[in-house]
């Protein structure tokens, strides 16, 4: 068994990559995953990996498989992972690694850096002085339907003038369908408006998959989930745009909210043309 494959008590957990030149300042006395194990760097050519030691008994392949399926353990790990990345992004560009990317030793991390540093350096270059913001637009569909229905200019069928119960039912049903179409059209238009407005003040933008509405919760139905990469000196303009959209949307039973700032999780790939 070679020295670096000896069964030591620790494995190496990778948080992300930074410019090697920033390595000294970025890695202050910041706690890693496990108590008492600070973050440190593994240097490659121009790019450095930010790591911390983690106990083998929790992070070996078998232990990890068990632990990832325990929500409290996973929550603690995810929050630690995010906390370290938040710290790093305050010092400069960082390429977030995915949760639970683990190495046997620093040497193994170095091998990856030696192989891929050119790609990493290009991506880091693109991510200077920007932060990711999440934006969600949600709709209260019932309220929007009522607003449109009450506006009463839904073309179609004269319910009050219908002579028989059956005709009245059909007329009502036709009207409901028209209202539904109008609601869908309104939501589509506002989503397009929000995404276009925010993209215009961003360096890059992504539309993310929306989660299905959960029955019985108070949360609105999310109709747009977006990630926006915003230059530091345009953050004021970005948030002014969010606030303005909020004001315009209020009468349409739509709400908009931003989360962040985040490290650029959604922007590690080359931007779409």
């Amino acid at each position: 068994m070679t020295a670096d494959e000896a069964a030591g008590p620790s494995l190496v957990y990778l948080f992300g990559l930074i410019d090697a030149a920033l390595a000294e300042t970025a890695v202050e006395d910041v706690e890693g995953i496990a108590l008492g194990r600070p973050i440190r760097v593994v240097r490659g050519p121009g790019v450095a990996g930010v790591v911390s030691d983690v106990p083998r008994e929790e992070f070996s392949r078998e232990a990890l498989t068990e632990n990832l399926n325990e929500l409290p353990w996973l929550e603690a790990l995810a929050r630690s992972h995010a906390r370290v990345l938040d710290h790093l992004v305050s010092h400069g560009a960082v390429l977030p690694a995915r949760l639970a990317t683990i190495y046997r030793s620093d040497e193994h991390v170095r091998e990856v850096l030696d192989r891929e540093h050119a790609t990493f350096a290009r991506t880091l270059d693109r991510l200077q002085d920007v932060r990711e913001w999440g934006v969600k637009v949600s709709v209260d569909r019932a309220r929007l339907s009522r607003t449109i229905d009450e506006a009463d200019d839904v073309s179609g069928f004269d319910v009050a003038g219908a002579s028989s119960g059956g005709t009245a039912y059909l007329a009502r049903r036709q009207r409901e369908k028209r209202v539904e179409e109008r609601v869908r059209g309104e939501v589509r238009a506002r989503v397009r408006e929000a995404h276009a407005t925010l993209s215009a003040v961003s360096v890059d933008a992504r539309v993310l998959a929306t989660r299905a509405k959960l029955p019985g919760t108070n949360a609105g139905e999310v109709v747009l989930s977006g990630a926006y990469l915003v230059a530091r000196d345009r953050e004021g303009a970005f948030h002014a745009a969010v606030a303005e959209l909020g004001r315009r949307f209020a009468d349409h039973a739509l709400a908009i909210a931003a989360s962040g700032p985040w490290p650029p999780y959604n922007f590690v790939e080359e931007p779409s043309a």
Partner: protein
Amino acid sequence: MSQSERLDLQGLGGSAAPAGTQNLADILERVLDKGIVIAGDIQINLLDIELLTIKLRLLVASVDKAREMGIDWWEHDPALSSSAGRNPALEERLGRLEEAVGLPSDEGANGRANVEGRDVGT
């Protein structure tokens, strides 16, 4: 719009909302599913990330909904707050909670993440 998704306007253009206060679902959908894919010696199987993400969303929503309703017994029970090993009692109760709030059960779907990589020993 749920409370946890509301913008913290004090954070505008300034300091980050600390990772401890951000919505767990927002954090998980980023750290699990985004970021660069670097070949590690051990890492989560990419094919299972989606399954795990779905399962977690349901679980997180169940827990959030329960808390909203004032149910949080597991946070006060030392037997349930241990994170060592699987906890069938907790999983069963959470399954019943999911049913109670009308969420689809994930019975039959293997939502367990698989971890791949060279065996570095236990």
